């Protein structure tokens, strides 16, 4: 379970995240949606202890990320797809991460296989395509076999086969009872992937809940229309007045 409670982050005079609160439960794929600059990545970074909030809390299973006894075994996070030393091979990158986290020596090969990169295990990451780096980011997140998964724009750089593969993987992971939070701005893809959504705009919550319930309540035809209803410049007041949250 992911809980965000009145989370706020300011950079100088800019408020990137403004009193944001939401919860994400296990067993479903939850989309974290919002326009560029809405505060999605900043929120995820605060949730993962990479950035300090000015106020509010973000917890995983009731505990701040930094206080988790074994973070890599509890949460798998895939943020950027360029967090690799280009001179290391994929398997060496995963072995270093597994060693640091105290994870079994067998696991790097297993997650490489899961990510479809077994044949490229010994290639330097610097020679990887964007899609391959995305898969390696995912493999890194899965190293600790975590119960909570947080992905920031996981579909970026994937080809159609990769997108289909990712979609299947996300559903499988949620089906195993894991908590899966996926940020995205690709609405058409998100519509086919997520079951619940948390929509934010200008750092504030616009709506949260099952996609079907939200579209029905707002008489939107689909997720894309719902998104634009919620995140257009005139939507903030409407969100506060009556959308489910």
């Amino acid at each position: 379970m992911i809980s965000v409670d009145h989370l706020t982050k300011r950079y100088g005079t800019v408020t990137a995240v403004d009193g944001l609160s939401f919860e994400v439960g296990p067993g479903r794929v939850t989309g974290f949606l919002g326009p560029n600059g809405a505060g999605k990545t900043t929120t995820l970074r605060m949730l993962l202890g990479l950035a300090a909030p000015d106020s509010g809390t973000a917890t995983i299973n009731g505990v701040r990320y930094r206080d988790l006894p074994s973070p890599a075994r509890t949460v798998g996070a895939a943020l950027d797809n360029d967090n690799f030393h280009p001179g290391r091979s994929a398997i060496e990158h995963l072995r270093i991460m597994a060693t640091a986290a105290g994870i079994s020596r067998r696991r790097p090969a297993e997650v490489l296989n899961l990510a479809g990169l077994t044949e490229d295990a010994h290639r330097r990451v610097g020679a990887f395509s964007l899609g391959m780096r995305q898969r390696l980011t995912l493999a890194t997140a899965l190293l600790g076999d975590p119960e909570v998964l947080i992905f920031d724009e996981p579909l970026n750089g994937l080809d159609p086969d990769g997108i289909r593969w990712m979609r299947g993987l996300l559903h499988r992971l949620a089906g195993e009872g894991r908590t899966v939070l996926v940020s995205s701005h690709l609405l058409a893809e998100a519509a086919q992937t997520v079951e619940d959504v948390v929509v934010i705009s200008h750092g504030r919550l616009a709506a949260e809940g099952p996609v079907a319930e939200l579209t029905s309540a707002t008489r939107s035809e689909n997720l894309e229309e719902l998104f634009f209803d919620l995140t257009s410049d005139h939507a903030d007041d409407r969100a506060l007045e009556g959308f489910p949250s």
Partner: protein
Amino acid sequence: MTTIVSLTRAELRKLLASRTFLIALALSVGLAIISVAVDAATAGKNGAAALGTAASTHQMLKLGSVCCVAMLVLGIIGSGSEYRYKTIIPAVLIAPRRGALVAAKVIGITVTGIALSVVTFGLGLATAVAELSAHHLHHLPADTGTLFAGSVIAGTLFGVIGVALGYITRSTVTAVVGAVGWVLFAELAILHTLAPHLAKWLVTGAASTLTDPGVLASRALTPATAVAVLGTYTVLLLAVASRLVLRRDVA
């Protein structure tokens, strides 16, 4: 404690997996051996001390500066490249209490510094002994052991200083330029000129006491004091670096 052990293992694995370490080791050892061989070949010529004299052997054993430069660069690359390649992000995700990350990095570079400095000075010394033996000379200066230990300590502390600089600047280029600029301009050009009596208390002054037989013999500082001075600079820089690593947002 388990976390630090795991993180330290990962740090050593990173070093051994990188070409940078092997290149630094090869350059350090190569320079040491060539330097000793050149000093032996030029001994007794153009006013240089004759081979077998204490002055000549001391000249051959000025190997600590090679260890210091190699470890400074390795330390800077070790921490600065975490930001350059953004590997600091997965590292912080594994160890969100970032003090453990810094501790593991320092332990890793300390182990590396000891190994590189021992190998560099050891092979340089072996070359010197071979050169002397070839001329039927079998005597080393009494302070050879002190120089060996001083070079290993100075090289190791420079590695930790490099780690601190890399963390502070978050840039390998800025850290290298800053370190070279400090040594060449602040210490050698300005402070040595304006206040030469302070030179022995500076980073390079203390390191010279440990690695340069001429400075060591002048008793400007005792070796123990030089270690304390260099250690103090190292701890201060590391304290600044740790504070920044713990407080900064990771982007």
